[in-house]
């Protein structure tokens, strides 16, 4: 287990979604000799790759393939914060920290 081993990111089915003002694709992460890569690290790498801010990158649905070494998930890169706030579902905004979680009293 080498935490600093290189990772390969591959984008599949890349679509520029003008209606929702974002770019969306399936992300394949190849990480041999490493356990799962965290979403923050992936967001950093994607931000440098696609020349955006780290906060605009949204990652979700990552599943590791059997045997390890490869995981597949979905990635969205928004154009700006306003559109992200408009189109993203609330739970993902809370995950990325843009919206605070409202604690409601349980029934």
């Amino acid at each position, binding site marked *: 287990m080498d935490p600093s081993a290189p990772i390969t990111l*591959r984008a*599949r*089915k890349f679509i520029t979604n003008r209606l929702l003002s974002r770019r*969306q694709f*399936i992300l*394949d992460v190849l990480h041999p000799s490493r356990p799962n890569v965290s979403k923050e690290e992936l967001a950093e790498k994607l931000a440098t790759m696609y020349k955006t801010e780290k906060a605009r990158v949204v990652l979700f*649905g990552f*599943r590791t*393939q*059997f*045997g390890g070494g490869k995981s597949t998930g*979905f990635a969205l890169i928004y154009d700006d914060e306003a559109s992200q706030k408009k189109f993203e579902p609330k739970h993902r905004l809370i995950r990325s920290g843009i919206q605070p979680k409202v604690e409601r009293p349980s029934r």
Partner: protein
Amino acid sequence: MADIPQVCSTLDEMTASMASVRELIQSLRDKQASSDATNMTDGISLLSWKHHLMLSYIQSLVLLCARRAIGDPMEDRTPPSNPFSTTDRDPRGSGIGDLVDSMIEGRVVLEKIRVMESRMRYQIEKLVRIADESPKAVTEDPLAFRPNPQNLVNNEQLDGGLGEDTDEKAQEDGVYRPPKLAPMPYVETTSDKRSKRQPVPKTLSSLIHQDPSRPHVESTSGLSFTPALASDRAREIQQMTEFEEDNFTRLVMKRKDARRRKRDEEDLALGGSGMSKGRRRGRGLEDEFEDILRSVGRTKTGSIGDGYEELRQKGKKSDALSRSRTRTRDDDESDGREAPQAKRTRFERERRTLNKKIASVRAKSKQRS
């Protein structure tokens, strides 16, 4: 000697009270003559019968005391001939025994009346309450009457003028609903027949996917994984992953299904077939001959047969129910067409005729030129 004035005063009291009673009775008599409350032609109500019974009881008691005071013996009686239940029973005689008998009768009837009253207690109380409190009309208050099961009748069961409303409602829907008058026989649809047919053996169906003479299928980028597409489960899982990638979501499943899917994916990654229950059927040489063994006929117990099971079953008579059915499968299947064709709509027909006309016109113009 001191008793005498007492007795005189008591006697005076008695005469005075009797005079007042006489007056009361006179007024009651006048009231009775004028009013029709005592009209007994329609029968007597339970409650007023109680009053009359008690009155007659008291009268008999008084008469009995008088007779005893006189000194008559208690045995004279002339009982009536008919029993209690006949309506035109002739009245009793006026001996002392008759008085006693009538008292006993009245007592028994009063007890029975009490029982009946207890059953009707709710209604009586309600009527009394209404009579006491409300001057308003009883018919306006819907709670005044007992529950009416007739009100529960469905609107559609009402006949006459309301039938038109139901027709309009059904027509607004746009769907024709036939009236349910008589029981209709169940007619099988084509989908039912298709599901009841014997399934195609796996050795034949797997040839479609695994035919070596057909070209090998791959994706353009070469990146998507190709599981062994022999088994249904593998194809199912591949469809699931395709759906997830196309629609940018993950499928929501129950925990059991998710675990089964993960297990099958691992199995496929290692080269297996992905069927979770493969171990249970049959023994020996399963990995290679799996397809064939699955399609070979099995006996009732589930053990693998020798492949001639189908032939044996064909020779046997089917059960009585299927024999009694006069329409056989051959009649339905040999309609002339195997694949169901789409119904030729009017649009299609007109299009065909037009095409023919155009073609004929073109042919004629070409002939001339």
